[in-house]
């Protein structure tokens, strides 16, 4: 717990994520097989690698969702081995799934997620315009949205959370060119206001231009830093 003290929401030693020889086993399969890497405050880090390399598992582990089998893991000053629950309220995760309720409208979904984290209505409006989600869509049910619109809606719920560490799994997937531009802009803005970002992407060209650094994940190991 002493590994990094928070002052004004920032870690004084600057390491937001610090993984050393981390092994994560689920159902006897080592999805992460000894990953070592660090992420400093204010970085935008790209995780690249083939499907099944362990990128998704790594992101979920950073969110405190998975038990660490071996090694040491520290995120935002929380030791994930002793208490992986403390970190949760301070990270924002966007996985392959959007976490939206199909039968609720865009606004109802936004209100649900923002009520959980205590955000206000103006936060929602800001987030929706930042990600280019037209306000005319707010009364539309999620079931009637296109894949790209859903992705934007999910991103908007994430923006509302004002997380210190953003963990994004294929955030570009399903978005059109304009949506990708808006996403990149949003992520840069979030970084400028103090957030650190880790994301996985197959859109290598675009992702490299966004990222400040990229890591390659293969066979459950971070192979190049």
């Amino acid at each position: 717990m002493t590994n990094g003290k928070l002052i004004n929401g920032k870690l004084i030693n600057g390491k937001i994520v610090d993984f050393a020889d981390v092994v994560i086993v689920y159902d006897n399969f080592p999805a992460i097989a000894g990953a070592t890497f660090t992420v400093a405050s204010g970085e935008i880090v790209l995780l690249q690698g083939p499907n099944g390399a362990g990128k998704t598992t790594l992101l979920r582990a950073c969110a405190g969702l998975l038990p660490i089998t071996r090694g040491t893991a520290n995120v935002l000053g929380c030791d994930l081995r002793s208490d992986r629950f403390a970190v949760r309220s301070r990270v924002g995760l966007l996985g392959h799934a959007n976490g939206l309720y199909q039968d609720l409208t865009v606004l109802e979904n936004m209100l649900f997620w923002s009520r959980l984290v205590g955000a206000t209505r103006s936060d929602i409006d800001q987030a929706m315009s930042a990600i280019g989600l037209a306000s005319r869509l707010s009364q539309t049910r999620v079931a009637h949205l296109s894949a790209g619109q859903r992705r934007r809606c999910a991103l908007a719920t994430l923006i509302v959370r004002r997380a210190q560490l953003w963990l994004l799994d294929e955030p570009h997937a399903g978005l059109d060119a304009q949506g990708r531009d808006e996403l990149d802009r949003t992520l840069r803005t979030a970084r400028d206001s103090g957030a650190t970002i880790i994301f996985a992407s197959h859109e290598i060209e675009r992702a490299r231009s966004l990222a400040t650094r990229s890591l390659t994940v293969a066979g459950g190991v971070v192979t190049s830093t």
Partner: protein
Amino acid sequence: MNKISGVRRVVGAVLIKDLRIEVRSRVVTNQVLPFAGLIMIMFAFALDNDDVLQRVAGGLIWLATMFSLVVIVQRSFAIDTSDGALDLLRVAGVDLSAVFLGKAIALTMQLLVLDVVLVAAAFLLYQVQVSAVGFVLLVTCVIFATTGLGFVGTLYGGLTAGAKGRETLLPLLLLPVMAPVLIAATRATEAAFGSGGAVTSEGWAWVGLLAVFAAVFGLGGTLAFGPLIDE
């Protein structure tokens, strides 16, 4: 103070979300209610005797409730797992006890609607009768029984949500646990109907047992839900 208002906010958000989705999708009204009604009708075919039906009406209402409960619980958690919302609830760092209470209240309210319809069906199909005192007993019994069932259903539904073989595991775990409710609610309902010469006053002790059950699983569920559904 702050914590309590936070819990209340989460309970409210989850409750409204679950109920709104149910109202929109109409799965309970369009599928579960007909299913429960069908159980009542099928029993009438199987038993084929008005006197017997009058006697066992209470038991049939609660059996139909419990079979429907299994279906509703599975549906209630499928909503949260189908697009990964349950994962995001965990990451949101919200108090999972509050999520439990919100979902349990939503489930209880759906069961209340279901039971109103089932009792009405018993009046229509099985020709049961009820006195004024019996009616009070019946209403109290339905409230306590559905509350207990809502708690226990949410607890075990959460445990099996997303697990392999949940369709069979949930009834295996849930049906034996609900046995005390089945016995108590059936006796109380029979007392209310006066089936087989049962006296109304006998029913109140059973309502007491239902209240104990609801309290035990309300408390147990609030404490245990978080550890159970978290990976």
